[in-house]
């Protein structure tokens, strides 16, 4: 009996001492955490996409609480989040430039073809290291879906051999743009935009051989543009959106049809019942 008692007392005693020590320590050594961080964090969407430039939503909330950081950096949260954040911090709300990701390529299976059968790791980054991927075009979408796997909102799908972005679901975080090994995905202001759906810097004839949707660098668009916004650089039409007024004249004259006029004006977030943007001409 006595042995059991001693054993129980010793273990119980050590346990009790440890408990008291831990309670005392948590009281005495308590670190005061800024309450605003928690409140700011609640306003953020929690996608941890990194569009704000910080390591996740926690990082952004902490940076906001420390001050000197703009409240409009959260593109997925858009204006509503910026307003809430500004309210908590007591500063004036700034408008968020909503963005969507767009793909500068339309080389699906109808337009381009494979130069080889690729049997390897199902990743664009890996495929790119092997003779520049399986496709004929060494600038366009590889179509193995690196962007699909990073998208936090399942806005991207691979269809007919290339990636498509559903701009209704896109939250504009830009993770896909960072991931794409070809760099064909770009973030664009969320309004009606003219878009060059090609990334090929090959010379006209070479590019056309690889893909029937390829920009040949014929400069027709350059001549037709009334505001001088579209220029052919390295055999590829590039639009300067500072100058572009979305008249669409370049799209009309393009003999290939690789310039599209698309409407991205806010539909990706608010009017989900609308049809997804058709990129087809």
């Amino acid at each position, binding site marked *: 009996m006595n*042995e059991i008692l*001693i*054993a129980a007392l*010793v*273990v119980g005693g*050590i*346990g009790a001492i*440890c*408990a008291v*020590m*831990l309670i005392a*320590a*948590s009281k005495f*050594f*308590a*670190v005061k955490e800024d309450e605003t961080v928690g409140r700011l964090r609640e306003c953020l969407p929690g996608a941890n996409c990194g569009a704000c430039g910080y390591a996740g939503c926690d990082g952004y909330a902490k940076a906001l609480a420390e001050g000197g950081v703009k409240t409009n950096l959260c593109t997925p949260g858009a204006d509503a989040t910026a307003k809430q954040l500004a309210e908590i911090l007591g500063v004036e709300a700034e408008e968020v430039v909503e963005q969507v990701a767009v793909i500068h390529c339309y080389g699906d299976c109808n337009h381009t073809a494979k130069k080889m059968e690729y049997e390897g790791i199902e990743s664009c980054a890996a495929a790119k290291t092997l003779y520049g991927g399986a496709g004929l075009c060494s600038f366009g979408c590889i179509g193995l879906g690196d962007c699909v796997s990073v998208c936090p909102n399942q806005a991207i799908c691979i269809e007919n051999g290339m990636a498509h972005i559903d701009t209704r679901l896109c939250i504009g975080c830009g993770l896909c743009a960072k991931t794409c090994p070809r760099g064909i995905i770009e973030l664009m202001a969320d309004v009606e935009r003219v878009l060059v759906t090609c990334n090929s810097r090959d010379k006209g004839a070479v590019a056309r051989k690889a893909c029937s949707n390829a920009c040949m660098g014929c400069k027709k668009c350059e001549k037709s543009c009334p505001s001088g916004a579209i220029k052919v650089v390295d055999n590829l039409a590039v639009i300067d959106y500072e100058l572009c007024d979305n008249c669409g004249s370049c799209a009309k004259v393009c003999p290939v049809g690789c310039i599209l006029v698309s409407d991205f004006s806010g539909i990706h977030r608010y009017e989900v019942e609308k049809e997804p943007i058709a990129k087809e001409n």
Partner: protein
Amino acid sequence: METLKGFIIILMTSVLVNNYVLSRFLGICPFLGVSKKLNQATGMGAAVIFVMLMATAATWPIQTYLLDRFEIGYLRTIVFILVIAALVQLVEIVLKKYLPALHASLGIYLPLITTNCAVLGVTINNINDGYNFAESMVNSLGAGLGFLLAMVLFAGVRSRLESANPPKSFEGLPITLVSAAIVALSFFGFAGLVEGLFA
């Protein structure tokens, strides 16, 4: 001089000959879990050294002055687990308050180590081997260094494995376990090292 010799022998034994991970197979969980990247592996190793020393400093007196005195040595395991767990928590709280930088680098590993069997193993082995307090501390330091060594070595092996192309059925954990076994095999080469140290 004799004590110093004894310390060196204990240290070499616990680092190389009886490496806690690669020869005694204790603490395999963090060894496989956190060895993917070198900086994480070294962080974990440093945390383990720290906790092993703290745990030994706390458990050796408890064994000697409490358990032995009341002749309840059979309670060693449960008491040590209790003390180590509480101790690590305490250390974490104190670190958070006074050394936030160290807490940020060790912080995520400390709770992981709480129930690490290598830590419990080293404290129990200290008692079983009949070490005195100083010898126990040296043994714990050696065990921690050995853990760090194993982690760093294996992080190197793993970074090579990343780019290897094993058969499909071996991908991931299986090939990691196989390579861990080969690394452990290489540590057999240290057997007999200590006997010749001062010969």
